[in-house]
């Protein structure tokens, strides 16, 4: 074998090593962590029929492909957490060679391997490889979509168009944010109309535009059944999650999370405070160089346009900003980092690469081990505890009601389960929490139960409201925290009989009002004390006051 051949094999060997590392980091102890709320919801949805999945995702303002896939996966491999997670991990692992392919369109082998390496140990990618949601599938499809797009504008070959179309159909049925990927491609293609992408081949721009239009028509046709169903079901109450309006800080938080994953709050704020060093890197970047290739512009557009679009819509119209939805920018973000590293020279390059590599590894280790991370939800430990503590006379109340998904997955105790507000998940949307509804629901819940086990997530809407309400109404017996956001409060609802001594000026009605807030309940007191004449009471007489009916 000559030297060049050997060189090439060296790179493939390293690539295989990086993929192997990625596999290990994603699969190691993949089943040990508790199921999270979103994951539990995915499994619950996927365990139903495909018809129900379609109905439910319409209401949930999501797309059905991943849950349908999960449905068949569970049918084959069972509904345990580890099975679902492995499916996400497989998409995550496949994203690595895909990322290498995409990077090679922009960078030399050495730096494409760097980008793949970043993807392999990226704490953010690893997190979603271990989460039973569609995000790794979305990432994989995004990488392929961009890859075929670049191949099309460079070679205009039919096979690329076919793969491109198939990839995009999968994409538009995976997540609504995939449309932003297509938007980026459209904006890039139109704004670089004059650029020649291939020096060896003349590719007629108009022809490519017509071909792309044909693809768009195919996509519209493919999407129309869903679009039609969406329009029809609109208005009958939505189960869509309500997001909060983002601030500009959220943008930087997102980029931090793309780079270093989810970290405890104090580390996150301390590291974002290092932002002047990013400015410094911008200056150090200035070196005599050849003009920046236009293809780099695709990366920059791919990173910035979805963020700007999402942020603007969230501010101006309706909040749709979530860091994980913007996972579509991470492939280009990692390739961009590798490109910046490739452009620096000498000592600075070595410094950058070492600092970056070490901090990535540290971030990954910390994300894995630290319990202070907000999105680590230890449902399993909490619910096992509750299972052990509850009796058949208790009732478990969840707030917000979504928590029913992980709860049902883990709970094996005898108590009945309900939520605040009371919700039938098959019927429709979660009702609004109003003060009247709260009081009403609590009455129904309390019944003649002995204790209320209130289990809340304090970072979700409705959790803290329920806790505050119950804190004011009942005596708290116990308070316990499981992971950063999950709290268990146990309240006493059944009281032993009270005894009251009549004072000067009391009437049976006034006593009834004092204990029951309702004068007409005097009859209960009269009955409990065998009073024939309710008007005849003596000062000093002791009355039994039964507990609230």
């Amino acid at each position, binding site marked *: 074998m000559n030297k060049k051949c050997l060189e090439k094999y060296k790179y493939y060997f390293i690539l295989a090593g990086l993929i192997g590392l990625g596999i290990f980091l994603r699969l190691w102890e993949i089943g040990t962590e508790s199921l999270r709320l979103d994951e539990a919801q995915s499994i619950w949805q996927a365990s139903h029929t495909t018809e129900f999945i379609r109905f439910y995702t319409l209401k949930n303002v999501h797309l059905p492909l991943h849950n349908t896939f999960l449905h068949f996966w569970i049918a084959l491999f069972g509904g345990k957490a580890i099975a679902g997670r492995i499916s996400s991990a497989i998409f995550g692992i496949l994203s690595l060679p895909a990322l290498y392919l995409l990077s090679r369109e922009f960078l030399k082998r050495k730096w494409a391997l760097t980008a793949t390496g970043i993807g392999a140990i990226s704490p953010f990618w690893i997190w979603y490889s271990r989460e039973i949601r569609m995000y790794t599938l979305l990432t994989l499809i995004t990488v392929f979509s961009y890859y075929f797009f670049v191949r099309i504008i460079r070679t205009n070959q039919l096979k690329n168009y076919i793969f491109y179309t198939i990839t995009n159909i999968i994409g538009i049925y995976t997540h609504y944010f995939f449309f932003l990927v297509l938007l980026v491609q459209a904006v890039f293609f139109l704004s670089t109309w004059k650029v020649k992408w291939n020096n060896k081949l003349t590719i007629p721009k108009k022809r490519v535009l017509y071909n792309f239009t044909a693809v768009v028509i195919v996509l519209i046709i493919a999407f129309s059944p869903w679009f039609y169903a969406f329009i029809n079901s609109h208005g009958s109450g939505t189960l869509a999650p309500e997001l909060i309006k983002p601030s500009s800080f959220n943008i930087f938080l997102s980029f931090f999370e793309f780079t270093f994953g989810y970290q405890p709050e104090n580390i996150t704020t301390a590291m*974002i405070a290092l932002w002047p060093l990013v400015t410094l890197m911008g200056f150090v970047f200035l070196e005599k160089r050849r003009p920046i290739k236009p293809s780099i512009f695709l990366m920059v557009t791919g990173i910035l346009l979805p963020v700007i679009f999402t942020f603007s819509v969230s501010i101006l119209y309706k909040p749709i900003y979530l860091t994980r939805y913007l996972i579509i920018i991470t492939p280009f973000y990692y390739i961009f980092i590798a490109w910046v590293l490739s452009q620096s020279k000498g000592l600075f390059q070595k410094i950058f690469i070492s600092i970056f590599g070490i901090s990535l590894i540290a971030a990954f280790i910390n994300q894995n081990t630290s319990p202070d991370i907000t999105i680590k939800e230890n449902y399993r430990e909490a619910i096992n505890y509750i299972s052990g503590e509850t009796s058949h006379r208790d009732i478990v109340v969840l707030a917000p009601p979504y928590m029913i998904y992980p709860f049902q997955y883990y709970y094996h105790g005898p108590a009945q389960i309900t939520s605040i507000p009371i919700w039938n998940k098959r019927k429709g949307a979660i009702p609004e929490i109003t003060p009247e509804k709260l009081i009403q629901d609590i009455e129904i819940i309390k019944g003649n139960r002995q204790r209320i086990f209130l289990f809340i997530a304090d970072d979700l809407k409705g959790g803290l409201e329920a806790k505050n309400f119950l804190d004011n109404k009942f005596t708290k017996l116990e308070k316990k925290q499981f992971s950063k956001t999950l709290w268990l409060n146990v309240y006493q609802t059944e009281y032993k009989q009270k005894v009251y001594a009549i004072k000067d000026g009391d009437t049976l009605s006034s006593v009834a009002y004092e204990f029951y807030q309702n004068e007409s309940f005097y009859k209960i007191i009269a009955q409990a004390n065998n009073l024939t004449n309710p008007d005849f009471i003596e000062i000093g007489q002791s009355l039994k006051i039964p507990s609230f009916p």
Partner: protein
Amino acid sequence: MNSDKNQEIILPAEQVPRLFIIFALGVSLFYGLWWLDFSNMESKMLYGLLFIGEIYHIWQAMGYMYTVWDQKKYLSKTCPHDFAPPVDVFITVCGEPVGVVEKTLAGAISMDYPNYQVYILNDGLVAKKNNWREIEELAKKYRANIITRSIPGGAKAGNINNGLKQTKAPFFAIFDADHAPKKDFLKKTMGYLSDPQMALVQTPQYYKNKDENLLTHSAWEQQELFFGPICQGKNKDNATFWCGTNAIIKRAAIEKIGGIPEDSVTEDFLVSLFLHQKGYKSVYIPEILSEGLAPQDLKSYVSQQYRWARGCLDLLFRHNPFFKKNLSWAQKIHYLYSSSYYLNGLIIAVNAFIPIYALLSGVSPVKEDVNNFMIYFFPFIFTTIYLLMKSTQFKITFNAIQMSMSSFFVFIAAALAAIFNIKTKFEVTSKIEQVGNYLIYALPHISYILISIFAIYFGIKKQGITPSVVTNTSWVVFNIVFFFGFIRVAYPWQSNWTYLKSAIKNSAVQIINFYKKRGSIPYQINLLSEKQNHK
């Protein structure tokens, strides 16, 4: 380097798409909006200082955007056949080494133009330089004219005025002692002077020795920015100014403004202002038509920067273009923009000390919970960086900016001298390399590093690792990286490091050899026999 010369004949400057410049303008104004929102303020004093600094930066950025808006290249014009008026070529000499002057003279006398005379304006006698007689002999050798001044006064301006008195050609070209004109200098520049209103044709300075060391390299990269997009952007508004050397000037125009002013340090800048006031035109040709020398050691670099800063700030304080009549608004903007560049020194110093103060005192200029600064700042700074890159055809370097930032204390000294009108004697930039230790010029930078180490330690100890402490530390690191520019070139670190490495290696080898010898058998036998002898 020959290939370099051929490639860089025209200084790089590219017309940046106008849409992008408008975008950059919008982003800069957007950034300014954050500072105008005073509800973010916590410490009035610190916020106020930063506010002034950032307004200055936005002003400089906008000035640059205005400059690069129209990069119409004026290429060299060969003069029409019937236009070849006599030209006096002046070479101003004040104690430079004979070898350097000889190269300039050799270039000057071999120019390809039918009608010119070369005059060496020798200030060596009045400036008490040793070699003025050798310069006279040099002139004799090359059969050039020489005017050795005997009555002192006015430094270089006085020298030129003296020369003008004794010559009579309608145009004169000026070269510093170390800037040797190329053959076609006159041929390519005289074409513009057929216009009777044209008073000045300026060409770039080029450093032949730019690859000699890190300092000359950085100095050249700074010139690339100035003689590239900045000077070329002045053409559209008739705001090109005389840069002291490598230019042709119309004599009648100088006479009209009363000769070259002898009371200013940077007389060239002032002359251009007066010429523009009289309505004359000037043009800049970005073609390299002469070769000069960059300052090779930190001392010469500092004195060169001091001179330029002093001259520009003098103009700003004493002849403020804003109030001058008969200048167009565009010209005023250009003069203000170029001269106010040297105010940068104060801003850099203030910006460097605010984080130190914040670390030591715990007082922050901005409220703790304000976290939207980045969304205003990042677009501004990265757009400006990209604009710099694009407009210089990606030739702008970190080194150039680093040296500018490191020169802050030089600019401050110049500003103070200009305000208090301190008279300073000016040494001509030295043309020979003086290798050695110029760490004294890096003293402010080294002390900044020491103070900041203390401040960071103190800040962490007193406040813990809060976001405020982390951000202030990052700014301190930012400043240190830039200030390192002077420290790098102040001392021959590289050669000393190599020397140190080899010294350590040598002594290590010696020690190893010694122990090897000890262990070897012949050595043991000798030792044994010696012991026996002692017994």
